C-alpha cells in the first residue's frame, strides 16, 4: 500500500473496501442508491474491512471516501438506453473512458472526477464496480417507481456477488430486520 495522500487511511495493513450508495432520497428514483444500502444493511453483516455508506449526492466531496480504498462498489441510478429498472454494470475503465465535460457549477462533478482526482494523488480504488439502475422518474417527491423498486433486490445481490469475488463476502443475517428507509415513513 502506498502511503501517499493517505488522509483516508487507518494504520492497518488490511485491504479496505467500500460499498457506496449515491442518490437523493427526496428525488423519486434517485433514492435507489440509499435504498439498496438500507436493504443490504438489513439483510447482511459485513466483514470489518467493508464500509457500507449512504453518501447522498456528494459531488466532488466523494473524493475523501475513496482515499485509501482498494476496491469500491458504487450503487446509483445511471442514464442508459434501456427500460427503467434495468440493471447495468460498469467497471472502472468504462467509467473513465470518456473525459469529464466542462462544467458550470462546481458541484456538477461526480464519480468520474472523484476517481480521477484520487488517481492523480496516487491513491484510490484500483477496482471499481458501478451497479447502475436505469431510473424511471426523478422529480421532487419520495418513493421509487414500481420498476425501480423491483430492481432493488437484484442490485443488492450484484453488490454481494462482487464482495464475494473480492474475497470479502457478507454473511446473511439469520433474522433480517426490515430496512430503515426513514425517508419513506410518514
Amino acid at each position, binding site marked *: 500500500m502506498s502511503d501517499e495522500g493517505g488522509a483516508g487511511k487507518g494504520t492497518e495493513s488490511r485491504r479496505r473496501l467500500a460499498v457506496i450508495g449515491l442518490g437523493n432520497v427526496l428525488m423519486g428514483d434517485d433514492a435507489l442508491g440509499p435504498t439498496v444500502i438500507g436493504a443490504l444493511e438489513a439483510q447482511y453483516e459485513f466483514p470489518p474491512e467493508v464500509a457500507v455508506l449512504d453518501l447522498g*449526492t*456528494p459531488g466532488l466531496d466523494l473524493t475523501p471516501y475513496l482515499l485509501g480504498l482498494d476496491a469500491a462498489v458504487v450503487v446509483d441510478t445511471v442514464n442508459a438506453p434501456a427500460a427503467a429498472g434495468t440493471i447495468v454494470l460498469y467497471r472502472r475503465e468504462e467509467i473513465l473512458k470518456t473525459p*469529464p465535460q466542462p462544467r458550470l457549477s462546481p458541484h456538477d462533478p461526480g464519480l468520474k472526477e472523484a476517481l480521477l482526482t484520487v488517481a492523480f494523488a496516487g491513491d484510490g480504488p484500483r477496482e471499481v464496480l458501478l451497479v447502475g439502475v436505469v431510473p424511471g422518474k426523478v422529480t421532487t417527491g419520495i418513493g421509487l417507481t414500481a420498476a425501480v423498486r423491483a430492481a432493488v433486490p437484484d442490485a443488492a445481490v450484484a453488490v454481494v456477488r462482487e464482495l464475494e469475488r473480492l474475497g470479502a463476502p457478507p454473511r446473511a443475517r439469520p433474522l433480517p430486520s426490515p430496512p430503515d428507509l426513514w425517508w419513506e415513513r410518514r
Partner: protein
Amino acid sequence: MSTRITVDPITRIEGHLRIDVEVDGGRVKNSWSSGQMYRGIETILQGRDPRDAWIFTQRLCGVCTTVHAIASVRAVENALGIEIPINAQYIRNVIVAAHALHDHMVHFYHLSALDWVDVTSALKADPAKASALGESLSPWPHNSKREMEAVKDKLASFVAGGQLGIFTNGYWGHPAMKLPPEVNLLAVAHYLQALEYQFKANKVVAILGSKTPNIQNLAVGGVANAINLDNQATLNMEKLFMMKDLLDEVAAFVQQVYLPDVAAIGAMYPEWLGYGGGVTNYLSVPDLPLDTKGTQFDLPGGTIVDGNLATLKQITSFRDPYFKDNVTESIAHAWYDGEWDKHPWDEETVPRYTDFDGDKKYSWVKAPRFEGRPMQVGPLAQVLVGYATGHPIVKKYADQVLNTASAIAKVKLTPAVLHSTLGRHAARAIRCATLSELALKHLQLLIDNVGKGDVAIFTPWTYPAGEQRGFGFHEAPRGTLSHWVVIRDGKIANYQAVVPSTWNAGPRDEKGQKGPYEASLVGNPIADTAKPLEVLRTVHSFDPCLACAIHTLDVEGNELSKIRTLT
C-alpha cells in the same frame, strides 16, 4: 454584431444552471442566469413533525447537507422560543466552522483553481524556482525542492498515461491563462496537499456529527452528543483533543498555503480585480453565537448598499426584525404561477413552466430581495461587513492578503479591489483563515465550559397550541441561508428555504433589476467565444450550488454539458 453564448449543462432528466451572455466587441453586453431545475422540495415537509424537518432538509443538497440541518433546527427553535444550552451552541459552532473550512478549501483548490492554473504548463517549471517562490511567500514546510520535483514527476507520469481528462474543464493553453510555470507547479502541489487537509476538517464534522455527510447529532432544543470526559462512548477528552490536533493542522494549511496562494493569483491576474463586481449590495448574517439566546456572535452580519461600507446596518440577533421583515422573493421572471413578490412565510410554490424567454420567465430560481434590492451573498459579503465593523480577525487577514498581493503586483491594492471576480476568491480565503482561528476558539470554549462541570446539551420543550412562525439563519460557506417555517398544532404548515445560490443566481425581478450572477458578467472580456473561460471564472467565483439535488450518472458518454455559440 453581437454573439450569443449559452453555457448549458444538460442531463437527460433536467438541467441545472444555464448562463446566456451576449458578447459584442469581445465584451459581455448582457446576460441571463437560469436555474434549469425545479426544486420545490419544501413541499415534502408540509404536514410533517417540525422535529424531523432538519433530517429532511439536509438532503436538499448533497454538498451543503450540514448547513440545511443547522438552519432548520434554528428556524423551529425560533418559532417555538427555545433557547439551547451553551454547550449545544459551541458543538454546533465547531461543526459549522469545520464544515466551512472543508468546503472553502475544496472550492478553491479542487473546483475553481483550474480556471486560473494551467496544469500542463507546470511540466515546464523549474522545481527549485517553484520551491524558492513558495518559501518566499510562507513558512509552510512542504514547499521544498524535493516535494516540487515529486509533484512534477507525478504530473508527468499522469500526462504520459493519457489520464489528463480530469483537467479538461481547465482549458489549458487558453490565451487567458497567464501564470508562469513555477506558480502553476506550486499550485498543483497545493492542490494535492489540500485533498489531505480538507479531509482533516471534515473529520471534525464526523467526530461531532457521528457521520458525514448528513450529520446525526442535532435535535430541536440542542444536540445529542452526550458528554462524559471519561466514557469511551461519549464526547470525551480524547475526542476533544483529537479535534484540536486536526484543527491546528488545518489552520496551518489555511494560513500558510491557501491565503498566500490566493494573494499570489490575485496579484498575477490584476485585471480580474476589476471585472466581475456586479451587484455591490451585500448581505450576511451573524453566526457562531456566544450565548444561549443568540444575541452575541463571533462572525458579524449586516447589509452594505452600493459598495459603500458607511451604509453598514448590522443584524444583531437570531430574532432581529431587520432581517425578519425585509426578505421577499419575486417570481416576475421565474416559472411559477403568478407575478407576486412575497415574504417567505406567505409564499406558495406552484410551478408553471413556459419556454426560456429572457424578457419574460426564464428560471426555476426565484429572485430574493432585501428591502427590494438584489443582494450579493457569500464570503465577500461577510468580509466586507467584518471590515466595516472593524472585526479584528477579518481585518487582520484581509490586510494580510492585500499586502501580500500588493507586494507581488508592486502596486498598492485597497479593499476596493475586493468588489470583483478574484475579490470573491480572496474573501473566501480571508473568511477561511478567520474560521481557522474561531473553530479552535469555540472548541476551547466547549472544553472550558465542560471543565466547569456543565454537561447540559438539551433543553426540554413541548409544542404550544395554535400557530407559530419562525426563521433560522446561518452564514453558510456560500452565504446567507435562511429557513422559514409556519407551525400549526405541532405540524409544519409552510416551509421555505431561501438559499445562498438563490440570492446570487436569481433572475431579474419585477423592476428588471439583474441578479448578482447576471450583473457580474456584464463587461467581462471574452477572448474566445467557443471557450468562454471568462464566464466560468466569474460564475465559479460565487461558488454556485444548484446542481446537487439530483445527479444521475452518465457513463455512456452522453453529452452532459454543452456550450453553444450563435452568431
